[in-house]
């Protein structure tokens, strides 16, 4: 469906702080930061723990399971790369471990989306980056 001339989607470029997240995504693992001082899990990637401000951190794999916390259906055309997707869902997924991610739910029509629905991560591979999507569990 995508034409050669289509405007590309604004996909992220991994930076130093987020590289373990995107390397994990490439390998099919949803990675979280875990504070070594207090154990708090966090996303998105950042140097300091937002609970205790410690910079000591490790990356751990999450289960990849979560729930739809809330969602919206996008009808407004904000970016030309999404014009053909309208109406599409933008969903906040609350991971089993607590942190939240913006994503799209794939594999079901928007009309079947529900708050609280159990979902599991899926991966959308692009040439140089992999993006988490979610589908019904």
């Amino acid at each position: 469906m995508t034409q050669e001339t289509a405007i590309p989607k604004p996909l992220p470029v991994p930076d130093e702080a987020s590289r373990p997240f995107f390397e994990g995504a490439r390998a099919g693992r949803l990675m979280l930061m875990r504070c070594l001082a207090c154990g708090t899990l966090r996303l998105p990637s950042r140097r300091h723990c937002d609970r205790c401000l410690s910079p000591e951190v490790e990356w751990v794999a999450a289960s990849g399971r979560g729930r739809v916390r809330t969602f919206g259906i996008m009808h407004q055309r904000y970016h030309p790369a999404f014009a053909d997707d309208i109406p599409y869902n933008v969903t906040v997924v609350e991971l089993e471990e607590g942190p939240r991610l913006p994503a799209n739910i794939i594999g079901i029509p928007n009309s079947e989306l529900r708050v609280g629905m159990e979902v599991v991560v899926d991966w959308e591979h692009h040439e140089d980056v992999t993006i988490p999507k979610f589908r019904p569990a």
Partner: protein
Amino acid sequence: MAHPLRGATAITGLGMTPMGRVFDRSATELAADAIALAIADAGLRKAEIDGLLINSGVSQGLTLGLQNYCGFADLKLLNLMNAAGSTAAQMVQYASMAISAGMARNVVCVFADTPLSEGKSSGTAYGMRANAPSRPRGMVGLYTASGYFGANTPYALAARRHMDLYGTKQDHFGEIAVSQRQWAVMNPLAQLRDPITMEDYHASRWIVEPLHLLDCCLVSNGAVAVIVSPASEAKDLRQPPVYIHGMGQGHPGDDNRAGSNWETETGARIAARTAFAMAGIGPADVDICELYDCYTYTVLVTLEDYGFCKKGEGGPFVEGGRLGPGGSLPTNTGGGELSAYYMWGMTPLSEAIIQGRGAGGERQVAKNNVILCTGNGGNLSYHGCLILSPHAS
């Protein structure tokens, strides 16, 4: 014992430029116009202004250089402030505290914004992430990769969660849109003055479902300035003083953190406690609400968080025209940001001053002893409020 700052300061001047599709002046020029209008409105001389607090809107057109442009010399208070839509209320708070501390006497608080460009849609101004680099660096790019853009999206997400948790209906948001338009019909300053029905509301196009076009605020160019003065001097100035009885802020923090209920429990809960305690009142004492209404949903959740009804009952609470003309809780009596003009927190503040002065003309609410004025910014992230009154004590 009454709080020592309750009624210690008052709003003495209000200046408003033309608002909406105003293209012939820069943000700085608009701000200077509003300041001149506010000084004249108060009956002060320019030399009597000794404080300047500046808030630039989304277009970021104002700088500290506004002092020099306006030729204010030897100011005793100056700052460029930004806590998004909560800034207007916050500027009045800091002005009030500085006056009470003896640091300044007559402080101008000014907001100006020029998000609209001739020939471009209003959505361009608030598309934000859509204007970001084509390949954002880091995890913020997960938003753009998902097609999550603009300010409309997080508010749609918040509204959806409220609907799911509490059974809030689309009609409840519609009630707010219709009520506010009824007020706007009576406001000569309002940009949208044609009455709307619930059918019109439902027929308006989706922006981000569950938000229709008529759930979303306007985007306007323009400027508003207000002047805060000591209560002891306010009564001798040109306008009826609008006294500051209560002030509060609340900022809940990161909406991605585990456990956050940012969608349905806002910083208004914290601000309400502080401001009501300072004013020595509760929600039952409020006669008029001027609530920040970037979206209909913002009004609904703010009413809950100030305790006008229980959490989750905002939908049924707004039914039956309660907020509209003739309703028991007149709210956003100029039409608000949805129907009148979008000057961030200056929208509710300017209408609160007009109602406090009894200058609302056809839309004036008879009982105006206690006016609650709120500001909200970010993704329900920042909240500031004022409790205002035409009475000194």
